[in-house]
């Protein structure tokens, strides 16, 4: 029944954050479309946020600093999503595809 | 123009509205090519309720064809009966007694009100409001009761006969009609509050669904659709038949060319119909309702005949070609919504689907009449 109390340990959260982060990395590498990559990036951000939040809970001397940082990450994520998706839409309008590999003429 | 959709530009998709769709009032099908929610092109497909009326006319004797007219446009069956009676009477030269003419006008106008009430209810239902439909149908039931007490059926009346009527009206009908007029005037005020003045409805209808005069001419739109475009055209006025010249009534015309103008035309028409009924009841002469010598066998002399009447939806014309036998050689039914709906294809381009369906509703479609 030791499993039932793992929510009291910091390591659980850290390992979990790492899991989400690496899932995000995997997604970022394997995804072919821009939107898929964006989703994977959001997943990575979620992993990072979990780390911040768990440090905030277990380690931080000042208990709101991690939360504020996570808030900041959320704002960044929102901004990223907005910008990224407007780019996706603009690219799609231009090239009629969002496949990252087909967008070779994007450079220049 | 109904060009075939040969090449689909990118990002469009085809939306099949109908044959079963709550907004098409029956079994109309509109193949809409959509760009998002905007209509790129619309092609109407008819014929889902093609009932071979014109073929039947060639197989049946003239009196036998009369019941079909009620099925053609089930909402204003009286007016269609009237048109058919007119053309046969014109061909055979049958005189109609005056009392019969007055009763014809009364019943036709009552039927017109009931038709507009169905339209009003169904139209607001199209726009998403459910309650006005119930009020309209409640008012309509009063008319149906009156007409049932005279004709014996509620919807597909077969009341007119060549030269007269199926039977006479009684005093109950007259007093009932007067009571109805009183009630309807009050109800119309209620509709003005509940529906006409409603800001949501106005925003949805004003400046949407443009049909200009040129378009009316090219498509042959008549009835409230033409009158909503500023065309002062009403067969009852322009080409008087029956005893219409003896009544004082106005033809409502609005020049805004939008759905709201068509809406207002119909609302005003109900009021004018009430006026006509009131006058007809006052002037109702005594006398027989059938000619003294009831025509036994209807055999019009050979030739072409034409008659037009104003139904609730517009100009209904009948072209009859007789070869002198008991059956018509050819009977062409010119239905008003056929032409009115035709302009939908052109007018709805670039509209949002919600507006297009609101526009379609403002054309007041009765599909069996289009398909015949």
């Amino acid at each position, binding site marked *: 029944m030791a499993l039932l109390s793992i929510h009291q340990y910091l390591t659980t959260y850290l390992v979990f954050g790492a899991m989400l982060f690496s899932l995000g990395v995997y997604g970022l590498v394997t995804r072919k479309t821009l939107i898929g990559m964006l989703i994977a990036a959001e997943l990575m951000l979620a992993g990072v946020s979990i780390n911040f939040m768990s440090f905030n809970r277990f380690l931080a001397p000042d208990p709101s600093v991690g939360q504020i940082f996570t808030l900041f990450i959320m704002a960044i994520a929102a901004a990223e999503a907005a910008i990224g998706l407007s780019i996706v839409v603009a690219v799609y309008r231009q090239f009629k595809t969002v496949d990252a590999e087909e967008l070779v003429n994007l450079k220049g | 123009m109904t060009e075939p959709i040969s090449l689909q530009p990118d990002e469009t998709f085809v939306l099949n509205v109908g044959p079963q769709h709550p907004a098409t009032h029956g079994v109309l099908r509109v193949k809409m090519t959509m760009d998002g929610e905007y209509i790129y092109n619309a092609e109407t497909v008819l014929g889902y309720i093609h009932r071979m009326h014109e073929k039947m006319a060639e197989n049946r004797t003239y009196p036998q064809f009369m*019941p*079909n007219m009620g099925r053609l446009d089930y909402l204003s069956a009286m007016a269609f009966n009237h048109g058919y009676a007119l053309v046969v009477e014109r061909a055979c030269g049958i005189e109609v007694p005056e009392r019969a003419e007055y009763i014809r006008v009364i019943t036709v106008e009552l039927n017109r009100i009931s038709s507009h009430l169905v339209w009003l209810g169904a139209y607001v239902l199209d726009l998403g409001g459910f309650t006005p439909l119930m*009020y309209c149908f409640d008012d309509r039931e009063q008319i149906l009761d009156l007409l*049932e007490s005279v004709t014996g059926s509620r919807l597909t009346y*077969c009341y007119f006969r060549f030269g007269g009527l199926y039977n006479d009206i009684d005093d109950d009908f007259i007093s009932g009609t007067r009571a109805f007029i009183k009630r309807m005037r009050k109800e119309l005020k209620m509709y003005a*509050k509940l529906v006409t003045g*409603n*800001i949501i409805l106005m925003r949805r209808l004003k400046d949407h669904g443009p049909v200009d005069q040129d378009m009316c001419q090219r498509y042959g739109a008549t009835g409230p659709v033409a009158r909503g475009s500023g065309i002062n055209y009403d067969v009852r006025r322009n080409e008087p038949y029956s005893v219409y010249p003896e009544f004082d009534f106005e033809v409502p015309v609005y020049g805004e060319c939008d759905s709201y103008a068509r809406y207002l035309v119909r609302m005003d028409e109900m009021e004018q119909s009430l006026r006509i009924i009131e006058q007809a009841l006052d002037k109702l002469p005594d006398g027989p309702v059938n000619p003294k010598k009831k025509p036994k066998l209807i055999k019009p002399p050979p030739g072409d005949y034409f008659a037009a009447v104003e139904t609730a939806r517009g100009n209904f014309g009948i072209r009859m070609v007789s070869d002198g036998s008991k059956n018509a050689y050819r009977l062409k039914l010119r239905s008003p919504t056929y032409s009115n709906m035709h302009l939908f294809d052109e007018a709805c381009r670039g509209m949002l689907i919600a507006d297009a369906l609101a526009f379609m509703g403002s054309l007041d479609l009765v599909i069996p009449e289009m398909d015949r």
Partner: protein
Amino acid sequence: MGGYFTDLISGTKSLLDGMWVTLKEFPRRPVTLNYPHESVKMYRRFRGHIELIGDEEGKPNCIVCSMCQRACPSGCISLGGVKPEGSKKKVLTSYILDFTTCSLCGSCVESCNFNALQFSNEYNLASTRKEDFIMDLLKRLEEQNQ
């Protein structure tokens, strides 16, 4: 800017007007006719399906002239009669009405010169069998007489 506020106010007023109309209906008695519990009586001119009129003895008035059959637009009447030995008039042996193709136009009743046909007041027919509506009117008349 002026339009902004007048729009707002007139729009709100129109909405409240509409709500007042429906609210006034709310406490009113419904107009509904509670059908299976109460029912409307039919007008004398109501056109149901047709039925035969019998004389005092219960015999049909029909003399099998077939006028109704000829007048019917959709051919839903078929009647048979025999001429018994020594009698001048035909006697009706069967009068079948296929109500499923009838259009209730009333041509048959109008064409009958012998007061043999009338409309019934059966306005609420429904059945799980189509055959129920192919009626033998002669049998109906007999049942009525009993």
